[in-house]
C-alpha cells in the first residue's frame, strides 16, 4: 500500500507518531499523480515546488512536536476557481489564461494556516458551469473507474484526484450539484455545507446566492475534519454566517436508531437508472435495520427546482461574469473602442456553455423580463424553502440518490444542454434552500461504476447530516479503488 491511499485520519496519526513524514506523504501523492494524470487529467496545475516547501515546513513542526492541526502536512488539491496568490488560476477558461491572483481565497488562507500542503489546481467545467468537466477549455477530466466516461462536474478534477489518491482531499464548489454529482460519479464523499458556512472570498463567483465551497474526501470522518478547518465567519464575505457554527463530527458514533429519515417522492421514478434506484432502496432497508424510521415525504417544488435554478444561476452569472472585460486581468482582444475590445474579448475568451448562460441570464434580467423570470424564480425559491421546512418538521434528515445515473460516456450529453442539466436534478433543491447536503458512495453497479447516496439536513444541521452519512458509510462498507491506482482490492 502507498501512503497515497491513507485517509486523512490515518495519515495525521502516522505523521504524529513519526512513522511517516509529510514529505514522504507528498511524494507518494505525486507518484500517484504521475501514474494516473496522463489518462485522468484531474489537474490543471501541479504546484510541486511550493508543495515540497510546505511539506518540509510541516516536517519541522512534527519534529518539534508542534503540529498546527488535523490537516498539518496533508496534501490537498483546490478546484481551479479558487484564487491562489502567485499560482495560475484559470477557472478552466481561456479568458483567465495566465492569471496569477494577487491574493489567496479565504479557504486557501485557512488551509495554509492549518498546515495543509496545497498540491495544485484541479480541472473543472469552465467557470463551474457544467456536469461533466467536458466544458474545460483545457480538455476534459476522465472518470477514474472508466476513462471512457466523465467524472461528473463541475468539480470533476477534484473528485477524480481524491478517488485515485493524487490528493488526500480536495476542495470544490457547489452551485447546483457541482460537488455532490462528481463525488457520486467518482465514488468519493462530497459535501455542500449550509450556505454561508465557508467563505466565498476569492472563489471566482458564479451564482452568488447559491455558491458554496466544500470538501471531497474518501471518508465521512475526513470530510468533517476538512470542513472544520475551512468553515468560519469571514468579514471579507458579506454573506458569511455570523452565528454559531455546527460541529459536523459530533454524532459520528451515535447511529441512526430512533431517527426519522425522509425519502423525497419526487426524486425517484422516470429517468433514474434501475440499479441506482435498487441500491438506494437497499440502503433504506439497511437504515431501517439500523433502527431508523423511513418516511416518504412529498416536496412538489422539487419538480420545478431545476427550471428555477436555470433562471437564478445564469442571471447571477451574467452579472458576475461582467467583470471579465479585458481590462484588469486575463485575455484582451484588439478593438478600436473599449466596447469593441470588451465584446471581442468576451466572445473569444468564453466557451459555448458560459456564453449560453450569460445570454440566458442577461435575457432573464433585461428590461421587461426581470419580474417574469428572475423575480418569479426568487419567489419559487421561497416556496422550496417552505416545503423543505414543512418536511423537516416531520423528519430529521432527507435522503435520495445523488444523481439519477452513474457516470455517462464522454460526449453523450454535450449536444443537448437540457439533458446535461438533468444530471443535477437531485442536488439543486438543497442549493435553492441553502441547506447542507452530501453524498456517500454506496458501491459499484454491475458495470463497475460508483453509485452515490445523498443525505440532506436543515440549515446548520451538519451534525445530523454527518450522523446519517456515517451510518450510510458503515452500512455500505465501500472500499474498492479504481484499477488505475494499482491498488489491489
Amino acid at each position: 500500500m502507498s501512503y497515497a491511499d491513507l485517509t486523512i485520519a490515518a495519515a495525521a496519526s502516522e505523521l504524529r507518531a513519526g512513522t511517516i513524514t509529510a514529505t514522504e506523504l507528498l511524494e507518494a501523492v505525486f507518484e500517484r499523480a504521475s501514474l494516473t494524470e496522463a489518462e485522468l487529467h484531474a489537474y490543471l496545475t501541479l504546484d510541486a515546488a511550493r508543495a515540497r516547501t510546505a511539506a518540509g515546513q510541516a516536517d519541522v513542526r512534527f519534529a518539534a512536536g508542534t503540529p498546527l492541526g488535523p490537516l498539518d502536512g496533508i496534501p490537498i488539491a483546490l478546484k481551479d476557481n479558487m484564487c491562489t496568490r502567485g499560482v495560475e488560476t484559470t477557472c478552466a477558461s481561456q479568458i483567465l489564461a495566465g492569471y496569477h491572483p494577487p491574493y489567496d481565497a479565504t479557504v486557501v488562507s485557512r488551509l495554509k494556516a492549518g498546515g495543509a500542503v496545497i498540491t495544485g489546481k484541479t480541472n473543472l467545467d469552465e467557470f463551474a458551469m457544467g456536469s461533466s468537466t467536458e466544458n474545460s477549455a483545457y480538455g476534459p477530466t476522465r472518470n477514474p473507474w472508466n476513462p471512457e466516461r466523465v467524472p461528473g462536474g463541475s468539480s470533476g478534477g477534484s473528485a477524480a484526484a481524491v478517488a485515485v489518491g493524487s490528493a488526500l482531499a480536495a476542495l470544490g464548489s457547489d452551485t447546483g450539484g457541482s460537488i455532490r454529482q462528481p463525488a457520486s460519479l467518482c465514488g468519493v464523499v462530497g459535501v455542500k455545507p449550509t450556505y454561508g458556512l465557508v467563505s466565498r472570498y476569492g472563489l471566482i463567483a458564479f451564482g452568488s446566492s447559491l455558491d458554496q465551497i466544500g470538501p471531497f474526501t474518501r471518508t465521512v470522518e475526513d470530510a468533517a475534519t476538512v470542513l472544520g478547518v475551512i468553515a468560519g465567519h469571514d468579514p471579507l464575505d458579506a454573506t458569511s454566517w455570523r452565528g454559531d457554527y455546527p460541529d459536523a463530527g459530533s454524532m459520528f458514533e451515535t447511529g441512526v436508531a430512533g431517527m426519522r429519515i425522509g425519502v423525497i417522492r419526487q426524486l425517484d421514478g422516470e429517468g433514474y437508472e434501475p440499479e441506482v434506484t435498487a441500491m438506494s432502496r437497499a440502503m433504506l432497508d439497511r437504515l431501517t435495520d439500523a433502527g431508523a424510521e423511513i418516511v416518504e415525504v412529498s416536496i412538489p417544488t422539487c419538480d420545478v427546482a431545476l427550471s428555477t435554478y436555470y433562471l437564478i444561476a445564469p442571471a447571477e452569472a451574467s452579472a458576475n461574469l461582467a467583470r471579465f472585460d479585458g481590462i484588469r486581468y486575463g485575455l484582451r482582444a484588439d478593438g478600436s473602442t473599449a466596447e469593441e475590445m470588451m465584446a471581442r474579448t468576451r466572445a473569444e475568451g468564453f466557451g459555448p456553455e458560459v456564453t449560453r448562460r450569460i445570454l440566458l441570464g442577461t435575457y432573464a434580467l433585461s428590461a421587461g423580463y426581470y419580474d417574469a423570470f428572475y423575480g418569479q424564480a426568487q419567489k419559487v425559491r421561497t416556496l422550496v424553502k417552505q416545503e423543505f421546512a414543512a418536511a423537516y418538521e416531520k423528519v430529521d434528515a432527507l435522503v435520495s440518490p445523488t444523481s439519477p445515473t452513474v457516470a455517462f460516456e464522454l460526449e453523450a450529453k454535450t449536444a443537448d444542454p437540457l439533458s446535461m442539466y438533468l444530471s443535477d436534478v437531485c442536488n439543486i433543491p438543497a442549493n435553492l434552500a441553502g441547506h447542507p447536503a452530501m453524498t456517500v458512495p454506496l458501491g459499484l453497479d454491475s458495470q463497475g461504476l460508483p453509485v452515490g447516496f445523498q443525505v440532506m439536513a436543515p440549515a446548520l444541521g451538519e451534525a445530523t447530516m454527518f450522523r446519517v452519512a456515517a451510518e450510510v458509510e458503515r452500512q455500505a462498507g465501500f472500499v474498492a479503488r479504481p484499477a488505475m491506482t494499482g491498488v489491489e482490492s
Partner: protein
Amino acid sequence: MPIDIDIAHVARLARLDLSTADLETYRHQLGVILEHAARVQALDTAGVEPTAHPLGMTNTFRPDEVRPSLDRDEVLSQAPEARDGYFVVPPALDQG
C-alpha cells in the same frame, strides 16, 4: 412565454461579439431552456416574498476604517496593459 428572443440585442447587452450563425444557435437553445422554465412561471406566487439570501441575512456592515489594500503593482501586473499606476483601455468615448 415570449418565444421571440431578440438575441442580437441580448448579445449586445452582454458585450458578446458573436457571429450571426452562433447567435441563431443560441437563440434556439435559449428557447428550449425557457420553454422548460414556463413551469416556473405557471406557479402561483401571489403574496410570496422572494428569497435573496437563503438564511435570511440582510445588510452587513463594518467599521469605515483605513486598511491596507492589495498591492497595487501586483494587481497591475495582471492587467493586459498598465501605465503609471493605471489600467490602460482603448477610447471609451467617440473621439470625433
